[in-house]
């Protein structure tokens, strides 16, 4: 029979030779192999201190964007929620009152915006659906949590810190690689 790959090896069913039945030579051979591993480079990344570099297309935790003046982009149109295949996004809209122009870019904004990170599959379709450039997937990922409720991220978790007043938190929310 034609083999699919060349990696298959014929198993020998011959009775063991005397040297094989001694076991010890083969054990010594195996011990030499394990000993050589002492000098191999360890691939371990010491997680909290070191972090793995993400690729530029990595899709991580969501952020809600602000514009150049620090106003929220989101207008609570609901297109992201419609696009979401996992139905992880819910929101409630509210009207911008006079005097709130420095907070929200347009007349309508999201009073409540929640993403359930346990449902989310990090496909990035919300990012593509958004007409206002309001939602982006950053290069960070959701940290562990003790309760299921803790994984429902509200607006205060998602909204990106203001670039002008808190640049460090802004960079951290976007993820290390892309700033």
């Amino acid at each position, binding site marked *: 029979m034609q083999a699919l790959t060349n990696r298959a090896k014929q198993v020998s069913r011959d009775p063991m030779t005397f040297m094989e039945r001694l076991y*010890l030579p083969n*054990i010594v051979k*195996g*011990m030499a*192999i*394990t*000993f050589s*591993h*002492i000098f*191999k*480079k*360890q*691939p*371990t990344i*010491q997680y909290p201190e070191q972090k793995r570099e993400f690729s530029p297309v990595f899709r991580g935790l969501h952020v809600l964007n602000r514009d150049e003046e620090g106003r929220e982009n989101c207008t609570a149109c609901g297109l992201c929620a419609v696009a979401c295949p996992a139905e992880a996004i819910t929101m409630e809209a509210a009207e911008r009152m006079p005097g709130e122009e420095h907070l929200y870019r347009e007349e309508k904004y999201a009073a409540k915006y929640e993403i359930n990170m346990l449902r989310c599959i990090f496909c990035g379709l919300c990012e593509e659906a958004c007409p206002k450039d309001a939602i982006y997937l950053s290069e960070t990922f959701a940290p562990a949590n003790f309760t299921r409720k803790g994984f429902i991220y509200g607006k205060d978790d998602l909204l990106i810190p203001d670039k002008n007043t808190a640049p460090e938190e802004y960079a951290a929310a976007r993820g290390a690689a892309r700033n």
Partner: protein
Amino acid sequence: MTLLALDWILILEKLILIAIIVFASLGIALYTTFSERKVAAVLQDRPGPNRAGPMGLLQPLADGLKLIMKEEIIPNSASKALFILGPAMAMTAALMTCAVIPWSSSVELFGRKIDLQIADINIGILYVFGVVSMGVYGIMIGGWASNNKFSLMAALRGASQAISYELAMGLSLIAVLMISGSLSLKTIVDQQMAPGAWWNIVYQPLGFILFFICAMAECNRTPFDLPEAENELNMGYHQEYSSMKLGFYLFAEYVNMIMSSAVMASLYFGGYDVPFLDESSLAPNIAAIIGVLSLLTKIVIFLFLFMWIRWTIPRFRYDQLMNLGWKSLIPLALLNMLATGAVILWQQG
């Protein structure tokens, strides 16, 4: 100071020696668990425990603390007295071995000559064998008293394995005894230390390999760790044990390893002898310290060998274990014994 016609200072000095050796071997056992994990990690391209303290050096203390703080559970259906007796016996038997091991030559302190050996009894090696076989009772009683099928199975395996391998061990030992003509470990070491004398490994290479394999089986180390075969018997004879009782079993295994390393070093590798160094030319105290360090180095090398083997080869199947013990090791040990006897006769005649 001869009240009741006893040398009271001798008793005091022996008590201090016992305390030092027992605590030292427990401390070394503690750190052997750590080095076991480190060696395993390094052989598998991992860094191993490195969080507790610098380089993870406080890890064994954290482990010990965890074991002590854990809830003490005795199963309802277990036989209580025996359940407690099991780990106690395992630990006692493991620690008792150190009584006859000559740790070094003697030191001179406060004008007294103190032997660095708790008891130089003339049947030293027989005592070691007697005590080591007692260790099996710890496993046997613990596993049986747990009233658990898996534990009982593991205990049975442990007992039958120990009996089978003690035979081959004793037979390979007889060849050494024929060379040395003495059962006292001190005498055996002194003979190897004498100027111009070789270590026993030179005369008994096959005997040493047999003894080493049997020692591994006696310590329940991989590839002979059938009594604690996790993937067949859940956890083995200590499945029902928790807290420090479990800790006693685990420590007893490591203390056993240290003691059998010490015995092997004394029997085959000259004990506290440093090769190509004439100890009698040094001051006795310095010679004694060098001797202790030399024996400790040999023990550490043996411990590494134990670990290295454990993380290299898989466990034997039960029938393979018995085949190896009865059909290979015992005949080979007998052959070795006969050959040694023949050579000795030929040299005399």
